[in-house]
């Protein structure tokens, strides 16, 4: 035996010398609250803490009372701990769900300075001042803000992380015929039948291994242990190529059309080996089979939250699976038969059982005899009324059915069972219905949605033989429904199974002053329930929200049912009439990182690259995202971005520049009715456009609002529609919608060819020279190819389309060539232009140039209210006689209001005064806010060509106010500007006529 192994054994004082499904040859060291402890491979943090006799694991949410381990599963309401360190710290982990691993660091949360001495316990001693809803009533004076900081610091569970998550997460989509939620005996049986029939099956269970209760209860199936049967079933499933079995996988939610989401946990050592931490599955099954089992419920009595009070099933679980003795002197308190199995199991391990406290007067005679034969006393018709103890329970006080004291008993373990509530959460997600069953004292499935079934303990069955035959029958039926023939799979024969719960005794609230917890996780007591009822919150939904029962991290998995029973008891209603609240997804918390998957960083959205991207990089373009990764400008060594933009703008005005405009939308519209179609889409007339000509156009929506602008060109047999680069998909889709839904009589084809063609704009007084140097068979003289015309031919021996339009205000040729050749072609332009000192310019430079020229940029100079009138195109809109999208809306009085925000230029009085987009325009000079804004600056630049700051703006009634002096309110600055025409440069368009 190794030294480490020996050390683990010696520190595990509550560990039995043998038994359990742990690997005693693999000791594991971990720390809890800084104290080194040890366990074994196969342990959970909870089992290891119990083995190390750690009683107080955490502190309660509101009163900071000491809390221990209450359950053995995801329903755990009290043992919530922080796991890990640094950026991998995970708050609010349920100790029973944390697999023990070497070096695990675990800490209690929600306590200060330590879990053993917590200052917050003062809230417990003064609990009468903090009833349910106290913060709604108490913190009104002088106002909530005064108290908010204090309350927020005191409330909450766990510390949020402040560092970026270092782990990565994966996503998987899957389709299957049958999805089975739960890998216990029911789920395994159904999966075997359906899988062997050839159905595509996915079965998921959040435990480390499939098998559920078979992994810890004493069960004999087909002559072997339940655990062996489960392992064999899991092996058989693995052999089937059409079955995916997913242990360590939470079934998080079920949504429309049975879409079901899962959260699969990765390798616990993912941080070391770099693998994924969690994988988020989106499963689209044809049918969902809910086989999730049931959750044992607690009992309500005085001080029922002390460490040492534990669900009876959990006590059994720790004993059988982990060989951990949760207490040396146990009392079992129950209202049903299933807790008697705990008696039998504890007795088998020679653990002292003080007594069984059974709330029922009548107990199954055979069962009673069996227990009494072991020498265990059964006190029937009696309940636990209160407990005593500090850091652990030490005494239980009993009360008889008629309210008389029945004495007290010493104990260090109080194993309780209040019956079993089926895990029907997924059914609730799917909007299935529930009904209350008085025999089982729980809500059972009632109305099932289409494509959804519930079987096994989740359907209220608790006899293993019934469960197997139920699962088998359901699977055979589903095989038939889903088009497969079930193979003759034998139904397992159960020769030994745990005691079933039988009839569950109804347990009304105890009368008395003692504090009884109905929701351990949120510290909700019976007094809170009584207060809620006194104040009229008797609807179950109101009651839940007032008391906050079931609203903590455990979502009431062990508390809700008792809360509804308590509400019924307080309002003289049966629990069925009280009803239940709705469980909503997710079943357990899901990491945000898992939902996000890889959708962050470089994969947050698709980055689009220009076809000549590598050459732009060599040109030292400074990139930003404009829907595409585009160079803003090309700074030279030592140049600021502004310097580069100014240099490039001067170069274009004085000589020639080249701009990569490849993202510009290029939608080809053809067909017999193409002109008519565009005439309806555009505010401008498309019918009169001659082949070889181009026209600027505005597109409006139904409300007459500008949604895009651009130049459309007519070639012999088609139109080429240039849209703004960010809008091309949207505009193409809009065109399709009009064609497919409204104008079905039009024979038109719309094809987006944006990425097929690279587009380079050569602009400036020497542009024609560069193009001639490059070589083209198109006559590019001003007479043959004037402004707003287009031609097809070849440039640099490539198929090309040249469009003579300008967004810079200079002589400009937009050349479209096949995108494969983009890099080589740009290189050729630069070489051809070298003699003319050609300068590549970026999109920020283009924005400066178009601002100088007063050209509108949709999205910058317009917003969701801008009409053609607002931007100076009203006369064109009014002149067009035929109908177009948005025309009728332009006739509304509001669209023609003289006070609408209109597009103007602003000339700053002091030409050196910097101005920025976003500044507000106020009437008169040097007005101080508050003042009604008359508009705002939409675009602003320093113009190196005009040697002054210029701006475009929208101003109320702006077009009638040219020459008026206004104040621009720009952050902390106020300065005067004159309203002028938006065209600052070449108002006569002489440059365009070259």
């Amino acid at each position, binding site marked *: 035996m190794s030294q480490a192994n020996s050390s683990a054994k010696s520190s595990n004082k509550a560990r039995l010398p043998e038994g359990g499904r742990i690997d005693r040859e693999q000791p594991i060291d971990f720390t809890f609250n800084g104290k080194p402890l040890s366990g074994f491979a196969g342990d959970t943090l909870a089992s290891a803490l119990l083995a190390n006799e750690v009683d107080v694991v955490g502190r309660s949410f509101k009163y900071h009372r000491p809390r221990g381990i209450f359950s053995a599963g995801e329903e755990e309401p009290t043992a919530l701990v922080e796991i890990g360190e640094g950026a991998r710290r995970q708050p609010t982990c349920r100790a029973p769900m944390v697999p023990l691993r070497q070096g695990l660091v675990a800490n209690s949360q929600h306590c200060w300075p330590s879990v053993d001495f917590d200052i917050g316990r003062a809230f417990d001693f003064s609990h009468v001042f903090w009833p349910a809803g106290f913060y709604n009533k108490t913190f009104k004076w002088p106002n909530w803000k005064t108290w908010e900081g204090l309350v927020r610091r005191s409330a909450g569970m766990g510390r949020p992380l402040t560092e970026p998550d270092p782990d990565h997460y*994966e*996503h*998987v*989509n*899957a*389709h*299957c*015929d049958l999805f089975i939620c739960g890998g216990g005996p029911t789920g395994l049986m159904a999966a075997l039948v359906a899988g062997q029939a*050839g159905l*595509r099956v996915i079965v998921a269970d959040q435990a480390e291994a499939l098998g559920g209760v078979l992994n810890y209860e004493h069960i004999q199936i087909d002559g072997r242990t339940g655990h062996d049967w489960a392992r064999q079933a899991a092996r058989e499933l693995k052999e089937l*190529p*059409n079955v*995916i079995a997913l242990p360590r996988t939470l079934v998080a939610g079920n949504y429309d059309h049975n879409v079901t989401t899962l959260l699969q946990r990765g390798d616990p050592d993912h941080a070391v080996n770099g693998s*994924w931490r969690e*994988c988020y599955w*989106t499963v*689209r099954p044809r049918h969902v089979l809910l086989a999730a089992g049931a959750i044992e419920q607690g009992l309500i009595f005085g001080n029922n939250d002390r460490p040492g009070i534990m669900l009876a099933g959990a006590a059994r679980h720790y004993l059988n699976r982990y060989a951990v003795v949760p207490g040396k002197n146990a009392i079992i308190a129950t209202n049903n038969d299933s807790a008697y199995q705990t008696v039998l199991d504890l007795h088998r391990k020679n653990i002292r059982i003080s007594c069984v406290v059974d709330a029922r007067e009548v107990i199954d005679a055979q069962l009673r005899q069996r227990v009494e034969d072991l020498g265990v006393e059964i006190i029937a018709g009696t309940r636990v009324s209160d407990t005593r103890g500090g850091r652990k329970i030490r005494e239980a006080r009993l009360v008889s059915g008629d309210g008389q004291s029945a004495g007290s008993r010493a104990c260090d373990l109080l194993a309780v069972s209040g019956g079993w509530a089926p895990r029907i959460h997924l059914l609730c997600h799917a909007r299935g219905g529930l009904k209350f069953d008085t025999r089982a004292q729980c809500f059972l499935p009632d109305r099932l949605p289409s494509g959804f079934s519930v079987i096994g303990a989740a359907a209220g069955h608790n006899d293993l033989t019934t469960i197997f035959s139920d699962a088998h029958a359901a699977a055979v039926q589903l095989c038939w429904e889903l088009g497969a023939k079930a193979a003759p799979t034998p139904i397992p024969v159960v020769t030994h199974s745990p005691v079933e719960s039988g009839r569950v005794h109804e347990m009304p609230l105890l009368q008395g002053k003692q504090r009884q917890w109905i929701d351990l996780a949120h510290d909700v007591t019976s007094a809170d329930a009584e207060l809620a009822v006194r104040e009229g919150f008797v609807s179950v939904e109101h009651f839940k929200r007032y008391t906050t029962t079931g609203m903590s991290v455990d979502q009431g998995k062990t508390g809700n049912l008792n809360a509804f029973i308590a509400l019924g008891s307080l309002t003289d209603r049966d629990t069925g009439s009280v009803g239940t609240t709705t469980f909503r997804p997710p079943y357990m918390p899901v990491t945000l990182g898992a939902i996000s998957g*890889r*959708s962050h960083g*470089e*994969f947050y959205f*698709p*980055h*689009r*690259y*220009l*076809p*000549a*991207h*590598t*050459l732009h*990089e*060599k*040109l030292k373009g400074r990139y930003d995202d404009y829907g*595409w990764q585009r160079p803003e400008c090309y700074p*030279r*060594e030592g140049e600021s971005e502004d310097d580069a933009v100014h240099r490039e703008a001067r170069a274009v005005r004085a000589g020639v520049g080249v701009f990569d405009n490849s*993202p510009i939308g290029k939608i080809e519209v*053809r*067909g*017999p009715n193409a002109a008519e179609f565009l005439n309806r889409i555009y505010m401008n007339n498309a019918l009169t456009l001659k082949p070889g000509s181009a026209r600027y156009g505005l597109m409006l929506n139904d409300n007459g609002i500008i949604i895009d602008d651009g130049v459309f060109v007519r070639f012999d*047999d088609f139109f080429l529609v240039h849209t703004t680069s960010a809008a091309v998909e949207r505009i193409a889709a809009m065109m399709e919608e009009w064609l497919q839904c409204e104008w079905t009589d039009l*024979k038109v*084809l719309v*094809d987006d*060819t*944006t*990425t*097929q*063609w690279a587009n380079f704009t050569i602009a400036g007084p020497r542009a024609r020279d560069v193009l001639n140097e490059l070589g083209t068979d198109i006559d590019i003289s001003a007479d043959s190819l004037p402004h707003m015309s287009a031609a097809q031919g070849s440039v640099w021996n490539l198929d090309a389309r040249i469009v003579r339009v300008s967004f810079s205000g200079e002589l400009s040729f937009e050349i479209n060539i*096949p*995108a*494969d*050749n983009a*890099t*080589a072609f740009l*290189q050729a332009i*630069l*070489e051809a232009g*070298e003699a003319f000192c050609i300068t590549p310019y970026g999109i920020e430079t283009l924005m400066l140039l178009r601002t100088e020229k007063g050209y509108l940029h949709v999205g910058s100079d317009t917003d969701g209210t801008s009409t053609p009138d607002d931007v100076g195109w009203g006369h064109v809109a009014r002149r067009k006689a035929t109908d177009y999208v948005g025309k009728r809306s332009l006739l509304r009085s509001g669209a023609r209001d003289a006070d609408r925000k209109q597009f103007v230029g602003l000339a700053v009085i002091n030409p050196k005064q910097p101005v920025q987009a976003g500044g507000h325009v106020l009437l008169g000079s040097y007005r101080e806010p508050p003042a009604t804004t008359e508009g705002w600056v939409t675009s602003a630049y320093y113009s190196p060509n005009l040697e002054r700051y210029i701006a475009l703006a929208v101003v109320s009634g702006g077009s009638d106010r040219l020459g008026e002096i206004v104040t621009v309110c720009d952050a902390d600055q106020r300065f005067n500007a004159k309203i002028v025409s938006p065209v600052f440069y070449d108002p006569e368009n002489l440059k365009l006529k070259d």
Partner: protein
Amino acid sequence: MTLKISSLKTDVMTTHHPPTALEQAGIVEEAYESETLRIRQVPGATVLRLHTLQSDEEIQQAMASCGLELPTQVNHSCGQDPAALCIRPGEWLLFSEFLDSARLLQQVQPGVERASTALIDASDGLTTFRLSGAASPWLLSKLSCLDFHGATAAGQHCARTALAKITVVIHYHQPRNGSSAYVFDLIFDRSVASYCWRVLCASAPHAAEMCGAAGPLSNS
């Protein structure tokens, strides 16, 4: 500093073929390979978009006269090279790995009635990645919600769908290279080639892991 244009000559300009979309985006890898997965770009693939107002019968006849079979059911494809993929009513992609666009245009153009049909060379605007190997359905399942495992049982077909936030046409087919194994071709906008490449390569190890751990999830 004066810009020296000649210093900017790119390597790709000295090669025989135009640069691929990946090369243009500055990515030098040519293929991703693991035991169960291979991803590679199909360089120089020809893609023509055939879009028509004609009836299915008319266009089928017209293309048949050019030696091309057209499927008329959406999401169906036929032919090996060139293959015709019906991606929506009245619209097909004609895909060829071996014919250049001039050859394919020459073959198909005679059947095209210009007034009612658009035949557009989209080869420069689209790029193609080919996925092969047992893990390829898993890789696609990580990035798109279609049923790729079930798809493998259904033979050659296609679908236009969203994959990792981009629009792709996915073509499941048997390539004409002597291999009997079916492959998935992803045909999509060239501007997102580097994004798509990176997201596929980043997701590939987990896909291979899933393939090993969970198997093919197919009832074929």
